[in-house]
């Protein structure tokens, strides 16, 4: 039996039935990473010692009968989420040697249920990018076609799951960073409602947008992980008192909105066909398909690329060469700041700090930042109106399948356009999932299912149905 190809559910059954131990499972993954990750570059660091220790502990728990579905199951963690005592680089030179002094709340929760952490996975530097190419430590290749990107910013977490180098991963999503790489790699990625998962211990990018979520092989697995991650945390004042309640939503009679603005110029015709075929299957399954209009969608990308960089420019001011991370020696304090940031940050991070500083600066604040906040409100109201008419919304995740490595690196705006279908959810705080629904040649294509706030249960239930319908 190939242990690394199992889902969480299957691996859990195997552990329960004593077919294998967590140490067996963990070693199988570690071997696979050693052999195959040099061609993929999903991992920035492998936490072998920690993993073996956790696996041994998990086996003791399993023997004692006190265990849950995630006990002893190996996972990878996006390297923007802190695991105590392990490096946390956010794929930036500025944090190349940074060691996390404490656990993120999501890590604490995983540790409590006996999870096994295999290592820290690659991303676009500070989670800024849609392709994974902005990592200071090299691009993650797409396991389905190694000449192409894995998608970003959670490039390593998605590729690790797709290549059977982790049973599941934790990613983070600020404008599509869980859903886009999940779509490109053919795995399931859930971006939860803003506030449902604690952000404590996640290196901040855009604090009003960031959300941690699971990337897994199946919808059921994503649900198992989300249940453990979600819930209020006193260390994150934006987290909400929320308890996930399983729901069984029948696709028959369900009203599914399909916004016409998601199928306009710019979408790859083959992506459109696959997504429309999936929608057709929902219809055949008894759902009522309603064409809706979301006029705000046209403005979402511009709105996002003002708000996210504005917040990033404030969040990244902390990397000043004084408290932690890289420090470039200089005569006076100002030069330490200038040189440390100049040397430590990559091109895209610098670009976003510059955009954000510009849009927040005196004289431009009203025209850009304030305008964007008003448009953000328009987007929220637009989606709220849509959810008065429909239960869920189905859209593509990205207008294109995984792009070639280097295809857009000289054209930042073309790169930003890949986020056009995902950013609205972050601006409105809504949950969404990407599930694989087809392939163009070897390249997977995802369907995005969007729900109203805190309706992860509805999304997950329908996504599970869709998983069966598109098989």
């Amino acid at each position, binding site marked *: 039996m190939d242990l690394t190809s199992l889902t969480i559910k299957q691996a859990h059954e195997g552990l329960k039935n004593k077919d294998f131990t967590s140490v067996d499972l963990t070693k199988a993954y570690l071997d696979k990473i050693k052999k195959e990750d040099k061609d993929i570059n999903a991992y920035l660091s492998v936490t072998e010692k920690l993993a073996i220790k956790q696996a041994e502990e998990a086996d003791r728990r399993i023997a004692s009968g006190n265990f849950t579905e995630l006990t002893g199951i190996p996972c990878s963690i996006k390297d923007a989420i802190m695991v105590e005592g392990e490096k946390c680089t956010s794929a930036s030179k500025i944090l190349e040697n*940074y*060691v996390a*002094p*404490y656990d993120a709340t999501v890590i604490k929760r995983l540790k409590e249920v006996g999870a096994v952490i295999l290592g820290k996975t690659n991303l676009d530097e500070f989670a800024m990018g849609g392709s994974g190419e902005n990592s200071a430590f090299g691009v993650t290749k797409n396991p389905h076609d190694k000449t192409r990107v894995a998608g970003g910013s959670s490039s390593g977490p998605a590729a690790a799951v797709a290549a059977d180098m982790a049973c599941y991963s934790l990613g983070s999503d600020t404008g599509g960073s869980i859903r886009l790489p999940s779509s490109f790699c053919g795995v399931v990625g859930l971006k939860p409602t803003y506030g449902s998962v604690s952000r404590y211990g996640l290196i901040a990018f855009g604090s009003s947008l960031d959300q941690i979520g699971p990337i897994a092989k199946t919808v059921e697995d994503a649900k198992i992980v989300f249940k453990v991650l979600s819930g209020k945390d*006193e260390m994150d*004042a*934006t987290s909400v008192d929320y308890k996930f309640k399983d729901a069984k939503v029948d696709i028959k009679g369900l009203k599914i909105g399909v916004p016409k603005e998601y199928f306009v110029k710019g979408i790859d015709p083959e992506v459109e066909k696959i997504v429309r075929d999936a929608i057709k299957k929902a219809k055949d399954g008894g759902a009522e398909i309603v064409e809706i209009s979301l*006029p*705000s969608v*046209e*403005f979402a990308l*511009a*709105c996002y*690329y*003002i708000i996210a960089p504005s917040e990033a*420019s404030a969040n990244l*001011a902390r990397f*000043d*060469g*004084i*408290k*932690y*991370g*890289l*420090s470039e020696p200089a005569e*006076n*304090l*100002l030069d*330490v*700041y*200038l*040189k440390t*940031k*100049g*040397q430590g*940050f990559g*091109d895209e991070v*610098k*670009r976003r*700090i*510059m*955009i954000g*500083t*510009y*849009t927040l*600066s005196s004289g431009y604040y009203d025209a*850009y930042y304030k*305008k*964007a*906040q*008003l*448009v953000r*409100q*328009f987007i929220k*109201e637009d989606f709220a109106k849509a959810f008065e008419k429909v239960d869920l919304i189905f859209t593509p995740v990205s207008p294109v399948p995984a792009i070639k490595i280097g295809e857009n690196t000289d054209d*930042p*705006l073309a790169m*930003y356009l890949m986020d056009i279908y995902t950013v609205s959810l972050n601006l409105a705080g809504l949950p969404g999932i990407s599930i694989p629904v087809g392939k163009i040649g070897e390249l997977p294509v995802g369907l995005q299912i969007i729900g109203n706030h805190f309706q992860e249960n509805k999304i997950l239930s329908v996504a599970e149905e869709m998983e069966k319908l598109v098989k």
Partner: protein
Amino acid sequence: MISKEEVKHIAKLARLELKDSEVEKMQKDLSEILEYFDLLKKAPKMKESSLNFKDIQTITRIDEIKEKDSSMADKLVAQAPDKKDSSIKVKSIL
């Protein structure tokens, strides 16, 4: 198109050192991106009162001292590039 001087001014505000070649590239990239933002002018006018943040609550907690292991402080200070004993060293500002 924004000017090189503007790019340098913004970089100064951001405390970011840019090489000459970076200033040039940034001028081109930022101009293109800012031009794209002009799209927002077409968005429907929203009243400022719509930003009433009524769904946002103030979250408070009791202001109390919680004992923590001193090893946490040591771990935090240990991350600093320049330190003396248990303090972080900063260059003089005056």
